[in-house]
C-alpha cells in the first residue's frame, strides 16, 4: 500500500510539486515510525508465501509419515511434525494462501456491500440512511464473533460461509466510515459541479464521491484484514468451515491443542505464530497507512 502511494509520484517526477510533497510525507511517516517499514516487509513475505508457497515447500503438506510422528523441530523438519508425521513447516507455508484468500474475499465483499451502503446512506440520507442504519445497529447488537458463529451454523459449514459471516460482522464498520465521509462531501463544490453538468445520482456516487473517499477506505480495509484473519481462524479453531486435512492456521492450532499438555509445543506454536505475525503486520500497516492518509487521527 505504502509503495503504491509513494512510487506513483516518482514516476510523475518533479513538475508536480504537490505529488512530490505526498512522497515526502510518506518518507517522513516511514522515517518517523520505522515499524511501518517492517510491517511492509512482512506483508511482502506473507504475500510471497501465499503466491508461490505451495511450489517451494520441502514436503507434501498432506503426506503423513507414520515413522516420523511428533518429531521436535530439526534440520529435516524445521517446525517438527504432527501426530500423523506431516511436516509442519510445509503446512504453515501452504496454509498462508487459504487464510489470505478468506481474508481478502471477505474484506472485498464487505467493502463492496458496506462501502456502497454507507456512501448511499450518507449521500441520500432519509429512508436509505434509516434502513442502512437499522441494519448496522442490529448487527452491532450482537457480540461479533458470536454472530459469525450463528451465521456459519445456520448457512452451513463451508469456507464460503466463513467469508460471508466475516463480511457481515464487519459491515457496520464500513458503513460508518463511508457514510461519514460521503456525508461531508454531499454538498461539496465538485459534487454540485458534477450535478450541474447533468450527472445522475448513481454516477456522482460512483465516479465522483467514491474515488474521493478511497484513501480512508483503504485504511479501513487494511485495519479489518487483520480482524478478518483472526475471525476466520477463530471459527475454524472451534471446528467450523475448513475441514481437517486442509492446512489452515486456525485448525492447525486446534490440532496441536491436545498435545500442549503433554509438551509437544511445536504443533500449535508455529501456525499460531504465523497467524499472530500476519495479523500484527496488517494492524501495523493499517496504522501506518492512517498516519499517511489522515495524520490528525493518530493516537
Amino acid at each position, binding site marked *: 500500500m505504502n509503495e503504491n502511494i509513494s512510487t506513483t509520484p516518482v514516476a510523475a517526477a518533479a513538475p508536480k510539486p504537490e505529488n512530490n510533497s505526498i512522497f515526502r510525507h510518506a518518507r517522513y511517516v516511514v522515517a518517523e515510525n520505522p515499524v511501518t517499514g517492517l510491517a511492509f516487509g512482512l506483508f511482502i513475505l506473507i504475500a510471497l508465501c501465499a503466491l508461490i508457497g505451495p511450489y517451494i515447500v520441502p514436503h507434501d503438506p498432506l503426506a503423513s509419515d507414520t515413522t516420523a510422528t511428533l518429531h521436535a523441530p530439526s534440520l529435516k523438519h524445521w517446525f517438527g511434525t504432527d501426530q500423523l508425521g506431516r511436516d509442519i513447516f510445509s503446512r504453515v507455508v501452504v496454509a498462508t494462501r487459504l487464510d489470505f484468500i478468506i481474508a481478502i474475499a471477505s474484506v472485498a465483499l464487505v467493502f463492496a456491500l458496506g462501502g456502497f451502503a454507507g456512501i448511499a446512506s450518507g449521500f441520500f440520507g432519509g429512508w436509505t440512511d434509516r434502513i442502512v442504519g*437499522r441494519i448496522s*445497529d*442490529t448487527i452491532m*447488537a*450482537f*457480540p*461479533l*464473533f*458470536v*454472530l*459469525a*458463529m*450463528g*451465521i456459519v*451454523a*445456520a*448457512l*452451513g*459449514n463451508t469456507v464460503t460461509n466463513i467469508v460471508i459471516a466475516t463480511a457481515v460482522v464487519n459491515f457496520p464498520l464500513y458503513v460508518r466510515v463511508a457514510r461519514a465521509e460521503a456525508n461531508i462531501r454531499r454538498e461539496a463544490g465538485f459534487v454540485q459541479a458534477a450535478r450541474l453538468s447533468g450527472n445522475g445520482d448513481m454516477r456522482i456516487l460512483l465516479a465522483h464521491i467514491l474515488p474521493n473517499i478511497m484513501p480512508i477506505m483503504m485504511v479501513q480495509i487494511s485495519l479489518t484484514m*487483520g480482524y478478518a484473519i*483472526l475471525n476466520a*481462524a*477463530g471459527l475454524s*479453531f*472451534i*471446528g*467450523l468451515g475448513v475441514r481437517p486435512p486442509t492446512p489452515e492456521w*486456525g485448525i492447525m*492450532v*486446534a490440532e*496441536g*491443542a491436545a498435545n*500442549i*499438555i*503433554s*509438551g509437544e*509445543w511445536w504443533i*500449535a*506454536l508455529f501456525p*499460531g*505464530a504465523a*497467524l*499472530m505475525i500476519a*495479523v*500484527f503486520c496488517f*494492524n*501495523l500497516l493499517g*496504522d501506518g497507512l492512517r498516519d499517511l492518509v489522515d495524520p490528525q487521527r493518530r*493516537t
Partner: protein
Amino acid sequence: MLRMIAKRMVLIIPNLIGVVIVTFLLTRALPGDPAAYFAGPAADKQAIEQIRVKLGLDKPLIVQFGRYVNDLVHGDLGNSLSTGQPVVTEIKNRLPASAELTLFGLILSMVIAVPLGILAAVKQGSWIDHTCRVVATAGVSLPVFFTGLLLVYVFYFELGWSPAPLGRLDAFATAPAQITGFYLIDSVLTGKLETFRASLSQLLLPGFTLGIFSLAPIARMTRASMLAVLASEFVRTARASGLDNRTVIITYAFRNAMLPVITTLGMVFSFLLGANVLVEKVFAWPGIGSYAVEALITSDFAPVQGFVLTMAVLYVVLNLIIDILYGVIDPRVRLDG
C-alpha cells in the same frame, strides 16, 4: 435520574426486536430443510411431512415468527437434540461459569490497562509509552486461543504452577453450595477457603488469557483520553494554582478521562463475549460457549440459537448498564436525559 434510565430502557427495545428477528431468520428462513434435518437421514417423505406439520413449518413465515416469539416469552428455547434436555435449563446452569470467567478477565485487564494507559499519557514518549503501544498492538493481534495455549504450556507443562486446564475445579474438589453460581464468591460465603484457592487457581490462566485480549482497547483509550484531558484548560489552571502533580493527575485528570473509557467498555464486551467461546474451548470451561461449540460440532441447532440469543440479549443489557453508569458518573448526561 430515573427518567434517564427509563428513556434508555425504551431505546433498547428496537435493538431487542432486531436481535429476535435475526435469530429467528437464522433458524428458519435459510436454505436447508429443518424438517428433513429433524427427521433424520432414514425418514421417508411422509415422515418428513408429519414433522413439518408438527413443527409448524407448513405455516406462513409470519405465523412461525409469532410462535417463536410466544415460545421465547414462555422461556422455551427448544430442546437439545443430542441430550434431549431443554436448552434454557442448560444455559441457566452454565451461565454463571461464563459470567465469572468474563468478569474476572475484565477486572484483570482493567487493573493492568488503566494504570498503564495513565502512565503512558503522563510520561508521553518514554519507554512506558512505547511499551504501552507495543502491548496494545500485540494484544489485539494475538489470537486468543493461541495465547491460552501458550500460557498452558508455560505455566502448566514447563513450570507446573498451574493445575491442568480442565474446567472450574479439579476432580478431587467439590463445588461450593450454589448461592450466586460464582465459585469464588460462593466459597467465601460458605467459608471454604480451600475451595476458593482451588477455583482461583483454575480461573487465573483463562482469566489472564481474556484479560490480555481486552487489554489493548482499554489501554489505548485511557492513554488517548488522558492526553486530551491533560492538555485541557482546567488541568492547566490546577497546575498553575500550585497543586501537586499527584492531585492534578488523580483527582482532576483521571476522573474526567475515565468517561470515554467507560464508553469503550461496550466494544470491549463485544470482544470479550466472543473470545470467551474460544477460551472456554481451550480450558474445557463448562460455560455456555463450550456448550454451543459442542452443539455446533454435532449440528445441534437449538442450543446454538439459544446461545446466540442469550449472548445478544446479555450484550444489549450490558450496553444499557454502561449507558446508565455513564449517567451516574457524568451529571451532564443526566441533565440532557
